[in-house]
């Protein structure tokens, strides 16, 4: 800014060459619209302004860290747990911090191991769904010829109840962490792709993109540089909401016996096992329930706050 003012003053001082031609220099051309606005910096600033969101983020990070610490300091290791029916249903005490389950296994390490599994699954699904959803959504929205095909595909997958697919997958392929993650990604990309597609259609034919196309910008550059930045807040919101969504889905499917196999402890499996006993032994429900609620509620709120912050329209 300063340099520019100086040059302007110089020009005004010598009125003779008021209208002389300036030699073209790309740096100077860039100078005119200069401000120190940076998108991610503004996002960060807006996010930090919301104290509650920051607190929740810290809580979430602490919890993830603690789940590792908890496994390390626990008196039992998940992999060497043994069933011992004489030890069943011991209420939480100094030996078994979260008590024991119906077949006498330490509940503390099960709960923390399960939360790690669930968080891991949720993150893998969220990232996978984002990549697949954004890619397909962009193609779906940008290439007119493929619109009909993808719309039909969407209707087809969306109209058959998901429970049928999940049951068939469980019966035909089996149940494991990998299968669960892949099949959840295969269904969840639909929502993301549809959101992205709708927005791509809105921005596709704006004048600036038309100009870009006429100037010969390749398609992938138009998509990545011109259109995707407009979608960031929607994508982030979807990404953040997909984490509680996946955890909910996992608990529901595992409860119905369609999710993870019983040997992979997840919060869903624990809640499912607890269903028969928690009326008499409420601690079997409370520990996994509190942890799963903390994860989902914090992420739900963080997601909303972050998506507000990442919307350029809210930036100063």
């Amino acid at each position, binding site marked *: 800014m300063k340099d520019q003012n100086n040059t302007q003053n110089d020009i005004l001082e010598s009125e003779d060459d008021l209208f002389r031609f300036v030699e073209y220099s790309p740096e100077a051309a860039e100078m005119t619209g200069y401000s120190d606005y940076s998108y991610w910096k503004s996002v960060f600033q807006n996010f930090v302004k919301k104290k509650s969101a920051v607190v929740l983020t810290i809580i979430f990070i602490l919890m993830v860290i603690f789940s590792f610490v908890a496994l390390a300091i626990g008196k039992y290791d998940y992999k060497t747990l043994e069933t011992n029916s004489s030890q069943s249903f011991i209420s939480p005490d100094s030996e078994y911090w979260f008590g024991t389950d119906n077949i006498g296994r330490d509940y503390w390490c099960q709960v923390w191991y399960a939360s790690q599994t669930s968080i891991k699954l949720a993150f893998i699904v969220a990232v996978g769904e984002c990549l697949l959803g954004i890619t397909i959504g962009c193609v779906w929205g940008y290439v007119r010829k493929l619109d009909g095909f993808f719309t039909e595909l969407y*209707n*087809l997958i969306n*109209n*058959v*109840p998901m*429970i*049928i697919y999940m*049951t*068939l997958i469980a*019966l*035909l392929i089996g149940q494991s962490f990998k299968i669960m993650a892949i099949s959840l990604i295969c269904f969840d990309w639909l929502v993301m792709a549809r959101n992205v597609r709708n927005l791509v259609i809105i921005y596709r034919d704006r004048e600036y993109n038309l100009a870009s196309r006429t100037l010969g910008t390749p398609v992938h550059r138009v998509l990545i540089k011109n259109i995707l930045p407009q979608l960031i807040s929607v994508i982030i919101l979807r990404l953040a909401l997909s984490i*509680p969504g996946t*955890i*909910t889905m996992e*608990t*529901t499917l595992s*409860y*119905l016996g*369609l999710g993870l196999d019983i040997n992979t402890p997840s919060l*869903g499996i624990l*809640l499912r096992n*607890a*269903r028969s006993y*928690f*009326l008499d032994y*409420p601690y079997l*429900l409370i520990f996994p*329930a509190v942890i*799963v*609620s903390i994860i*989902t*509620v914090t*992420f*739900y*709120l963080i997601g909303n706050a972050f998506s507000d912050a990442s919307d350029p329209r809210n930036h100063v």
Partner: protein
Amino acid sequence: MFKYTVKRLAQSFITVFIVVTLVFLLMRMLPTDYYFTEEQLMKFTEQQKNDQLLAAGLLDPVPEQLLRFYGQLLRLDFGESRRIQNGVPVVKVIGTKFEISMKMGLTSLGIAVVIGIVMGIIQAQYKNRIPDHLGTAYTIFVNAVPPLVSYSLVLIFGSRVLGLPSIYSSRNPGPSSILPIVCLAMLSIAWWALWTRRYMIDEINKDYIKLARIKGLPTKKIMRKHVLRNAFVPLAQYLPASILTTVGGSLLVERFFSVPGMGPLLTDSIHRYDLNVVQTLVIMYSVLSILGVFLGDVLMIVVDPRITLTNKGGTR
């Protein structure tokens, strides 16, 4: 309008047709051993199995089976159940379960719509004050926490504190269906409250409401005559769909409280490979969901005469 309806119904028919065919083919992917109960598998020789399959026409080439299936559908013959209730017509199997699910669903929907809309109105009226924050906290909790956890909390509170039965029994359906109904209503209350609030606040900020205020209309009248009526239009679209989906029951709630309703029937029939039941259910669900959206559009036109689905001259 008539032409539009016919066109749309024809389109829906094609969708249902494709979905049904897809499910038919998916179900034929399972190995033939699934046709028999474990007991039968132990007793039968290969020869007997083959004979049974031949008699049921399940060994014919798939295209032939598919054609026969279409023929039966045209005669509205949905076949008999094989494994759920041996030899009973599918329509009968569904009929008994249907009633339980629908009664429960309609009661909970009625409660949810009334409470949800009232909650939304109160929240909109006291925007950013304590009642609004309480309502938002409720919706966030219900949306973020996995239903399995919130159902468990309802179950503990209901059976421990209020002494209500924790499992549905057909001998006293009244008291034992209170908790399932509460669980069903809980989620939809949050949904109705959230969207009533959102649409009402959008409406309150419009210019004609300001004009009404300037004219000196009392707030109560503005809320009832202008804001609520206009805010209800977008909500009306979802009403028929939610009424129709009550027929399907809720898989999770019905499993959780052992309600013998429609919800678990689909997974059970897939697990036990009851082809006719699965196919009939899929047809039913897809017809209901398509019909729901269509009736929603019709209701929206009835509620707000300004909306048209067909192009009038001059409109786009």
